[in-house]
């Protein structure tokens, strides 16, 4: 009985949605080619011990997405809309970090500033751009998608302008640690960064009232205001927090290549981040949210992308496959379908109990 209750609890919990998606993908891969799950141990070109395999790739590349999903969840919950400028904002944050590291010379022999300084400057800039979006949404009450369309359009040009349209290259190997491997540690660093972000988020949600406030504002703005909250500020804050997440993701992105390509870096990542929130079972219209579910959603999206790559799907064709997932998700979460499903499961349950009583 107890275990049954737990199982039915999981079914009802929204984290069931990404878990189910994960299980389906895993089963598909298991059936198609079990070698998908193989993890091998070896040494990379500079002689560091590394783990490799598709699962490691998922952990690695899913991490930026998970970090972005955290911020996107806050924005979605508070504003009832999404930020479509995160890809462009990553380009800006990455560009700023490289600019600080390189100074005036785009191919420096030694770094012109400590990495931490570059990172912090990147954080400030990304948060300022987040604040820009936040002001448009919270104070000017522009629809989030429309408001962030501005930065979406302009962001990559701004990123190029920051470095005078040059492509700076960092030759110092330690800068590559953030997007690659720390010598001696076989697990990719982005995963550790993502875990750190998750822990911080968890602590923030536990030791502040951010979660309650965000949800309250997202559900009923007017009543939140009469309870002493400032909905404008909470919405603004959510965009600034997303800015911070963008900076962290930006660091990982530029560190992977030790350089930047303004038009390609983090391309279309905003769609994946939004998809992660949706796959996590969170309403894109705002209100209640489940952070763990969003984060898991991000890794599931990466799982899907990696699976598609493995089956040699052209990168151009990827969005079409993702679109299928979106369709399934949207249909599944539509109220009409949910009602049908719950009535079916109720009938099933009734039969079961009847069977027991007889």
């Amino acid at each position, binding site marked *: 009985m107890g275990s049954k209750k737990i199982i039915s609890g999981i079914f009802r919990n929204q984290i069931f949605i990404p878990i189910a998606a994960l299980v389906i993908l895993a089963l598909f891969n298991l059936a198609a080619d079990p070698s998908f799950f193989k993890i091998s141990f070896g040494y990379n070109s500079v002689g560091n011990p590394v783990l490799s395999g598709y699962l490691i790739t998922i952990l690695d590349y899913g991490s930026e997405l998970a970090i972005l999903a955290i911020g996107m969840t806050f924005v979605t919950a508070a504003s009832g809309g999404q930020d479509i400028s995160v890809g462009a904002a990553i380009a800006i944050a990455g560009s700023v970090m490289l600019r600080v590291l390189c100074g005036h010379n785009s191919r420096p022999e030694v770094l012109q500033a400590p990495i931490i300084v570059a990172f912090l400057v990147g954080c400030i800039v990304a948060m300022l751009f987040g604040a820009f979006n936040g002001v448009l949404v919270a104070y000017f009450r522009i629809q989030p998608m429309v408001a962030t369309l501005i930065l979406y359009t302009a962001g990559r040009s701004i990123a190029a302008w920051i470095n005078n349209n040059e492509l700076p290259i960092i030759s110092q190997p330690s800068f590559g640690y953030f997007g690659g491997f720390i010598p001696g540690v076989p697990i990719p660093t982005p995963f550790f960064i993502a875990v750190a972000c998750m822990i911080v988020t968890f602590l923030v949600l536990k030791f502040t009232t951010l979660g309650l406030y965000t949800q309250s504002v997202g559900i009923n703005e007017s009543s939140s205001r009469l*309870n002493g909250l*400032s909905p404008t500020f909470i919405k603004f804050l959510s965009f600034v927090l997303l800015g911070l997440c963008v900076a962290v993701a930006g660091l990982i992105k530029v560190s992977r290549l030790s350089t930047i390509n303004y038009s390609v870096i983090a391309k279309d990542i905003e769609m994946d981040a939004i998809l992660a929130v949706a796959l996590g079972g969170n309403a894109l219209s705002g209100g209640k949210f489940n952070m763990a579910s969003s984060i898991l959603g991000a890794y599931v999206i990466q799982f899907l992308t990696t699976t598609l790559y493995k089956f040699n799907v052209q990168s151009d064709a990827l969005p079409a496959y993702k679109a299928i997932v979106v369709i399934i998700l949207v249909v599944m979460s539509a109220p009409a379908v949910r009602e049908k499903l719950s009535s079916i499961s109720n009938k099933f349950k009734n039969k079961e109990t009847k069977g027991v009583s007889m």
Partner: protein
Amino acid sequence: MNEKSVLEMRNISKFFPGVKALQNVDFTLCEGEIHALMGENGAGKSTLIKVLTGVYEKDGGHIYLKGHDKEVSIRSPQDAQRLGVSTVYQEITLCPNLSVAENMYIGRGKGLGMSWKKMNSAADKILQSLDIPARATQQLSSCSIAIQQMVAIARAVDMDCKVLILDEPTSSLDEQEVEKLFGLMRDLKARGVGIIFVTHFLDQVYEVCDKITVLRDGQLVGEYEIKDLPRVKLVSKMLGKELDDMSDIKSESAAYEGSDASEVIFEAKDLQSNAGIKPFDFTIKKGEVNGFTGLLGSGRSECVRAIFGADKVVGGTVKVKGKKVKINKPIDAMKNGIAYLPEDRKVDGIVGDLSVRENIVLALQVMRGFFKPFTKAEAYKFADEYIKLLEIKTASADTPVKSLSGGNQQKVILARWLLMHPEYLILDEPTRGIDIGTKVEIQKLVLKLASEGISVTFISSETDEMLRTCSRLVVMRDRKVVGELSGEDLTQTKIMSTIAGGEG
């Protein structure tokens, strides 16, 4: 099925997880009859209506309609409409930015094509025949709430409805508007439409209805002819007990008698907000219950909203306990010990998707600050305490507040503010849309709080309720304070004459 009845519901049952919302309820509606459906909150009125209109699927029982030999199955509101069962809800469910005619014909065309000219002239004809003062081409939002409701009724009538359900239609109307609505109802009755009237206003029931069906705790208490059931009996049937003398609750509770009884808790001078009220002065003493009265739209809500900082304050000075303070937004007021239960609990009160527990602790949590969240255990303790104290009917503290009945939602919001232990509590229409039992409970609670030294400002559309609770009334007309009544002057007639202009 009886010759004269248009609707018969037999043995209707409906279960929700853990609740038997309806158990074997019968309901019969005859042609050309106005039938009141009465009961406390949670008695099952709304559930019965929702079963009839296809919003809920019934778990048992049968529904018969005139003109159908067999039992009918109503699985969606569209089904209900097709079968001639129409509903006009408490909240207007029309589209305010469309024209009156568009609202009457929306969703009813057979194809895509339609003639606007024809539609407008047809709409005008119906409006005229029902004597509704609106034009077909007028935008709906430019009509008063009463007219909007009448348009909704006209829409139903035009759809050839045989059963018209009016769910709390009068709760946001003033007296003249109610009269107009009743005129329309009597007109429809003469045309043979059966009307189910759900309301909390006893006076109105006795004014227009022919029969009363009373529900209690999801069960049928009985069906009565109006002349056989005097008010006192009706109330006791609804409550399931004899009602204690309501007119005398004021003398029951002692007035606050602390040494600081004359201390002025709140004082406003020339206070003015951007909501269009004239500057007004206002004071309240410790342990005093006073109220704002006036017709709907006279500015009584705007006054208390200005006090709480809910609207933008544009002028005047405010003193709390003799000290000058600035109240620009709700949090400023809360920090000064002022709590405000808003008029519209759905829009301004509850946070629907959050649990009862989260709704109860919200205001106190905001006061306490961003970095000091209550632990779950603390929050449960608060919630359970107030669920018990106010007898809130909820499955648990984790239930989303939106799934509670209206009266219980109101209690949750009341709990939220009581938890804050305010010194000055503003209650704007706390008893609207609430059954009579809870109403008396809330009135008693107000007087009890006052006897403990809390100052209360009470606003209600029902003057007798104000008379029972308040010791001083500020009278408003046309967004201006026009008088203050206390002591001997606190009578219905005196209030009326002050509201009307005081010449008589």
